[in-house]
């Protein structure tokens, strides 16, 4: 499934979508950035509540396909500008982490 299809299917709010046709495969959940860099795999959906500019750098370097912010967390506009520039897809959902993970279960 592509990032775009996943976002549409679940009604997530797209915040930065420079690379919507990327494939999503698997999911990693975490807020500690080094933990994510150590464990997340390329093309994963990264489910988190961490939304500062370092999140974008970690997403880019770890090569995840989508940063999905749970609990309706919204980053600052400047963070989203960096995400757009770096080709990092970011979306938000009002679901808590656990429920968001359950929702993704069939699709990634």
């Amino acid at each position, binding site marked *: 499934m592509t990032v775009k299809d996943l976002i549409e299917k679940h009604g997530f709010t797209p915040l930065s979508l420079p690379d919507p046709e990327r494939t999503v495969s698997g999911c990693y959940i975490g807020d*500690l*950035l*080094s933990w994510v860099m*150590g464990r997340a795999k390329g093309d994963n959906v990264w489910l988190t509540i961490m939304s500062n500019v370092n999140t974008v*750098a970690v997403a880019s*370097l*770890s*090569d995840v396909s989508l940063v999905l912010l749970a609990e309706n967390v919204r980053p600052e506009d400047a963070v989203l500008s960096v995400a757009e520039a770096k080709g990092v897809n970011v979306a938000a959902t009002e679901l808590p982490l656990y429920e968001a993970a359950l929702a993704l279960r069939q699709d990634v």
Partner: protein
Amino acid sequence: MSDKLTFHFDVDGESFVSAGQASVQVKKNLRELGLPPEVIRRVSIAMYEGEINMVIHANGGVADVDVYEDKVVIVLDDKGPGIKDVALAMQEGYSTASDQVRSLGFGAGMGLPNMKRYTDDMVIETVVGVGTKITMTIRL
């Protein structure tokens, strides 16, 4: 590619916002050179962890990335406080980072372990009160 290609960066010790610029630039450069995606991922994550360490602990430093025909070598050099107990610092979960650093999502005690995890060889030369030099090699 018989000669090595070298990329040099000054890592600004003042800002977590600019931290990662060198790693992201290296990622871009390696992609342009056509290196495999998994190699690029390993190099750029190892380098980012090193960059963050230099910002957290050492007020910045310099980073050099040499690309050879058969390997990528990353050298991170700082004039920070040095690492008192390298074995302890290598343990997952051990960290001396401040609460402010932790609130940004860093300081999980995974930096050095991740650098080792993603590289084929890592050498730490450190002198307390003088600085730390870390050399990481990723074979192609």
